[in-house]
Structure formats: structure tokens, C-alpha cells
């Protein structure tokens, strides 16, 4: 446990809080219906936060946080499958769950291999997701996969090593394949919708702070991505 990062018990600055709250509000479109209560700024004031770190190790911890979230989500989907899943859908979720667990465990190994401080195991908050409902599960999966794609796309320019850039590329296209399938299961033909792919044919990218703000409602520990990639 010596490599476990200790939470930094630093009160968040007032101005940072408002930036944080603003980012959360902006991300509500990505969040799920029914979790608006969780986005109430009064309820999410972080009293302390865990820094994801700096440089490429910070980037790896950032990806590790997202993959932890995805892996935990799909593990729950497979553990308590929705009764109204269509034929074959549980098999898809089972495979995606394995892919995400592999991404998570690979990143954990990579962070240790790079001599970095490893982010602790995060505690997910999935109270806004109804795991007995196919629609709720698919909507949540869509949110996580599209967020993952945008996160890795935005991470590219922040990575300093060609090795990690290539690996990020190797993971993001699998996330995009997942995203397209999930979207089509939810709404046939929405694999590359106009709300995801812009008029020039480009997918989205997001900064680490925006991504973590969008993911934060699903994570108990307060994460600070402000130094990631710097």
C-alpha cells in the first residue's frame, strides 16, 4: 500500500469551486436523467480531493479512473442483468465488461511500471442507474463510452510519450466500437449521430477536467484532474 496516493486534505478554493460547479452544470447533458439531485452544487462541495498527478503518469491515472468506473459499471450490469435485455445483449455486455476490466488492470500495471503513484480503488455511485431496466443501462453505457472516447481523444495532445499515445489510440478505437454498438442497441442508426460527430465528420474531444467533472457524480472520491498532463 506504500504506492497508494494519500488524499490531499486541502480545502478547495472558492473560485475553483465555482468553476467546478459550472463544469458540472455544463455536463448535465451527458449525465443521466434522474441524477439532477446529485448535481446540486451544495451537495457536491469537495472537502478534499485526490490529485490524479502530473505528466504522463497523471494521464495514466486519469485513464485508470475512467476504466475503473466503466469496469465497475459493466460488472454490475453482468451481475444483475436487466430482465428486458433482448436476445444476445447480455453476451455483448459480458464481453465489454471483460474488455474494460482488462483496460483497468493494464493501466494499473502500466502506472506501477512507470514508477508512478497509483490512484486508489474508487468507490462508484450508481444510484442514478436502474440496473433492472434495459433502457437505463444502455443510456448509462452510452454516456460512459462516449465520455471515454472524448477523454482519450482529448488526452492525445497531453501525452508526452509516443508509446502512451499509441496505446491510448489502441484503447480509444475499442471504446468507439463499444460506443457505436451501444448507441445502435439504444437507437438503431445512432452509431455516429450528429450530436456526437460534427459537420466536418469529427468526433468529440474533452479536457481531463471536463471529463472528470462529468464522471464525478458516479465516483465517491473527489478527483482533481487540474494537473493532469502538465
Amino acid at each position, binding site marked *: 500500500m506504500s504506492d497508494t496516493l494519500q488524499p490531499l486534505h486541502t480545502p478547495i478554493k472558492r473560485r475553483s469551486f465555482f468553476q467546478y460547479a459550472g463544469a458540472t452544470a455544463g455536463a448535465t447533458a451527458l449525465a443521466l436523467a434522474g441524477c439532477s439531485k446529485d448535481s446540486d452544487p451544495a451537495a457536491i462541495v469537495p472537502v478534499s480531493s485526490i490529485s490524479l498527478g502530473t505528466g504522463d503518469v497523471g494521464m495514466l491515472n486519469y485513464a485508470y479512473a475512467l476504466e475503473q468506473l466503466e469496469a465497475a459499471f459493466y460488472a454490475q450490469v*453482468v451481475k444483475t442483468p436487466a430482465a428486458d435485455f*433482448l*436476445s*444476445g*445483449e447480455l453476451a*455483448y455486455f*459480458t*464481453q465489454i*465488461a*471483460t*474488455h*474494460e*476490466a*482488462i*483496460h483497468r*488492470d*493494464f493501466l494499473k*500495471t*502500466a502506472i506501477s*511500471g512507470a514508477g508512478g503513484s497509483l490512484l486508489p480503488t474508487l468507490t462508484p455511485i450508481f444510484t442514478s442507474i436502474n440496473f433492472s431496466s434495459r433502457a437505463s443501462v444502455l443510456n448509462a453505457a452510452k454516456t460512459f463510452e462516449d465520455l471515454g*472516447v472524448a477523454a*482519450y*481523444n*482529448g488526452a*492525445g*495532445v497531453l501525452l508526452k*510519450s*509516443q*508509446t*502512451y*499515445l*499509441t*496505446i491510448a*489510440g*489502441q*484503447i*480509444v*478505437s*475499442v*471504446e*468507439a*466500437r*463499444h*460506443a*457505436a*454498438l451501444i448507441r*445502435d*442497441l439504444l437507437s*438503431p*442508426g445512432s*452509431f*455516429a449521430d450528429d450530436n456526437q*460527430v460534427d*459537420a*466536418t*465528420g*469529427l*468526433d*468529440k*474531444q474533452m479536457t481531463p477536467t471536463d471529463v472528470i467533472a462529468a464522471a464525478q457524480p458516479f465516483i465517491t472520491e473527489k478527483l482533481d484532474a487540474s494537473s493532469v498532463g502538465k
Partner: protein
Amino acid sequence: MNFFQIISEIEKVDPEVYDRLDSRRSIFKHMTGLGQKLTAAAVPLALGAIFNKAYAQTPVGATVNDVLNFALSLEYLESYFYNAGQASTTLQSGLSATNKAALELIRIDEANHVTFLRGVLGTAAIAAPTTATFDFTGGKGSAGGPFADVFTNPATYLAVAQSLEDTGVRAYKGGAALLMSNKTVLTAALNIHSVEARHASRLRAMRRAGPNNNAASQGVPVAPYNAAPKSWISGTDNGGASPTQTAPIYGAGNNTNAPTNVTFDAESNTTQGGTNLTGLPNTTGLSAAAFAVAITEAFDEALDVTTVKTIARTFVVNGSTFLA
């Protein structure tokens, strides 16, 4: 201090290092003089200065533009393919309504990629190829290649489409490391890359459910995945849609000019970042063999420019220098 070994190392990262240096013969002349004046200890510093000049004075855009024109060539290939497919009434009559709409969406995305890349390249963009540049039957101009019914048989059409998209995904991934010097371009390339992956996923779903099925995503993949693939690449997908032609799309690339610590492995690769991932915790109760397959699915692989060009030229007529 081995000067040529240094250049050889740089060449792995920047294949055009010789061009950069050669275009500045004056630097070599300069260096000849340096060798006489400097002590051995000072030579490394002098070399550093030379390389600083070579790289600082060469517009970074030279290399970036080469990569972008390569990407533009691939986008032309895809764009013309979907244009021809959407124009074939015979083909369209064999596709379900949702599949027709999906292919039109993909066609528009590819056309937009062409427009976008031309915009980024400006006057440095290659000339637009003519439609006669391509023979999508794979016949090199005979129009009677292995995919002879590509524009009349939806199954063949989707097989070629999947092959083009999977190739594109690997090509952009391989190009990313060459674009690190230009952050705007790198992000744009990544944003195109993930769209190609979305396309590939959809096309694979259409193939496993059948061209005339409106619920493309609910088809069942059937091993060894040649005709009914998963939405992601599993191992080498047994060589893909038509192994005689498509196996290289899922195979290993050429590592001769690979960036440092990057290898162009086959899609069946289970080692990432120097770690054999079959040793990771197998937490989902799979057999060791099934877990190894899942590892190959969890990571797509990059491909080098030379290998991608060879694959893409399957669809370029003999005598054309396009993508040569």
C-alpha cells in the same frame, strides 16, 4: 560518438531525417570545419546545434503534411467507394432501411473527412483522384477482381466496407505518433480515427445480422468471424472478410521505421507496453484461452504507412501512382 548511429536512431522517429540534412549540405560543410577546430568533448554540442538547425529551420508541416496527404488518400478511397455504393440501385435494393441510412451517414462522414483534410492542407493537398483511379473489385482495372459483385451484392459490399474501415482505423492509429509536433492536427486526426472505428463497428454489426436486417446490432457473431464478425476485432478475425485479400489488414506491420517503443503488431497481439497481459487477473471467469482472446479484442493495433499503402492499393488500378 557515432554520428551515423545517431542519425539512424533519429530515423526511427523521423524517417525523413536524411532529407532534412541532405537539403542542408552547407551544414555538412560547416561540420567538416568543426571537426578540425573542436575537441572531441565539444563534438556532441556541435551536433546538437546542427540538429537544432535542421529541425528548427525545416517547417514541421513538411512531415505533418505527408501524413495528412496519406490520410487524405485513404479518405478519397473510402469516399469514392461509398459514393459508388449509394449510386447503385441494385445494391440499395438489397439493404434494409436502417442499413441504407447508416451507409449514407458513413458516406457523408467520409466526404466530410476529405473536405476537412483538404482544408487543413490547403495548397499542399494532393490533387483529387479521378474515379477511374479505383477498381473496388480488386481487379486492378479489370473490374473483374475477387470482389467482382461489390456494387451489386450487399454482402460483398459490406465485406469490402468493413475491410476499408478497419484499415483506416489502424492507419490513423499508426499516424498519430507522427503528428505529435502539431497538437491541433493530432487532435483532429484522433477525432477522425474514432469516427472510423464507429463506422467499422456498425459495418460489422450489419454483416453479422445480414444486409437486409433492420436490427443490425442484434445479429449473433459466429466464430471464426469471417462472415459474422463481432463489433470489435477478435484475434486476427481469421483473416477478415475475405482472407486471401484481407488477411494483411489484421496482420503485423513493418517495424523498420517504427517510432521508439512502438511496434506494429498483428491484431492477435497480447503484449502491450512491454507487458504480457495474459498474466493480468482473469476476473470474469473465462478460460485462459478465452481471456487471451478478450485481451486481443480490448486493444486495436496500429499499422505503418507502407503496409497500409500496400493494402489500399488492392483497390487502385495498375499504372496509377495513387498511394504508391
